[in-house]
């Protein structure tokens, strides 16, 4: 009973095919004159120094983790929003409490300097 998926399969095939044909035609008919200048990452720009993969400062990690933690809480808003009307006032109050607790965590992180860049 996979027939219902056929439309998706066709779309997938067409999308891949169109992209592949475009690239293939460009390769086939486009003029190719390679030179050192063209091989540079930025023509007329500065030459890159050092390897491309470097260690990132750990500060990025802290911000990223804070983002993930607050971001993931959004999933709980989704089911709540769907049945918002049936839940009525009680649901609204519960959600306010939930956000309030999140807010305390946010204030704490803020005041402790977790959001400072320097």
């Amino acid at each position, binding site marked *: 009973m996979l027939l219902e998926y056929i439309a998706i399969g066709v779309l997938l095939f067409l999308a891949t095919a169109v992209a592949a044909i475009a690239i293939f035609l460009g390769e086939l008919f486009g003029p190719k004159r390679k030179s050192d200048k063209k091989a540079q990452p930025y023509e007329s720009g500065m030459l890159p120094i050092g390897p491309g993969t470097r260690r990132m400062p750990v500060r990025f990690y802290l911000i990223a983790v804070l983002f993930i933690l607050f971001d993931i809480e959004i999933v709980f808003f989704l089911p709540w929003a769907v049945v918002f009307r049936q839940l009525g006032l*009680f649901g609204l109050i519960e959600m306010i409490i939930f956000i309030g607790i999140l807010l305390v*965590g946010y*204030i704490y992180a803020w005041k402790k300097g977790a959001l400072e860049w320097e």
Partner: protein
Amino acid sequence: MTAYNSTMILAILPEILLLVLGVLVLLFDVVWKGEKRRALGWLTAGGTALISIVTLLIGRPGEPQSVFGGMLRFDWLGFAFKQIFLLGAIATALFMMDIEKLSRRGQAYALLLTATLGMSLMASAADLVMLYLAIETTSIPLYVLAGFLLDDDRSAEAGFKYLLFGAMTSAVLLYGFSLLYGFTGTTSLTSFVGSLPLALGLVFLIVVGLGFKISAVPFHFWAPDTYEGSPTPVAGFLSTASKAAGFAVLLRLFLTAFPQFVEQWAAVLAVLATVTMTVGNLLALAQKNIKRLLAYSSIAHAGYILIGVVAASKLGVASVIFYLIAYLLTNLAAFGIAAAFGRAAGSDEIASYAGLSRRSPGLAFAMLVAFLSLAGMPPFGGFIAKVLVFTAAVETGWVWLAVVGVVNSIIGLYYYLTVLKVVYLYRMEGENEEQYPIPLTRPYALALTTLSIAILVIGVLFAPWFDSASLAALNLF
């Protein structure tokens, strides 16, 4: 939609209050500066004591009932366990107050309260969703607390090992839950319908997850390393309240979800109990570090408590609860002593305890009480507790298991007495011990005195406590 009613609020009263207290601690941590932050410990301990009193006065359950759409059970079993956890949190907060780098940081107390909140939910959860969430709410703050002293690589390593084991076993547990859901079509902990092999497979997956929490062999590897590396009061909390929470879930889960397969899972747990007791005690014999010794001793105690679970009778459950109360008081005291000694003497080696009876007679006496109770000597709480679990085992026909337990108690006696020998009979080499007193700060003095008295009281006047435990046990049958 279910309207809310006052029973629902009462059912989660301790959790609500713990949450409020935790938020307060975090806010005061931002407002208060410097030395004043030490008061956060008093706030945590006092607040938790208040919560315990308030719930004892107005939060008592009546007839067992389900609340929040069957998410929680509001009954005496959960209530009894919640009081146990609150007690553990009070003592731990007091012990934390004088640990360098821990005492003046509000998040440590907030994490402690969050973990306690999770345990409370574990004790009353009646639905797989709630149960999983409660277990993780307990575990994650404890991972952080175990690795709290990030500059100390031993603490970070302790936290990481705990986290690694915890995350893996909880994933196994989750997989077990997903299959349980699949075969029953419900997430509530009603009786499981299905074939025996299937039930045994599920029991195995669940035992892995909970065996980690109660640190039963062979899921115990994290315990000695984590206890040694983490801050001592945290290790005490891990070995008592966290373990009690694991047993609360074990009892409720097996007795409500798999009652018809009791013979099979009791056999599995009996083997687990035997191995846990024996391995824990034998490895404890060789330990040189007091925290590692207590870690292996706490593994052995998990084995004794499992005997009560294996019995799966009213007396068995009651004996488990009583044992957990006695064990909580005793082990908290033991770790509290280790913390007090460790911060003054700067060492956790058993050899450095030589001459303690002269350096601090009070501390040495508290140690005598705690270790004799751990060993199961009368008139202390640990004695009655052991007698009760062994009686429960014999009553339900597990005579051989009781015998194994008794033999193990004798092995245990040996290493507890060895430590006491160092404390009371050995001297510091060529020194006058009176010149090296161990100062006890007020929180320590308060907590250790109370715990020592409590150990004696439940050993002598055990009837009221046992009656409460029996009342709680009734809710499972």
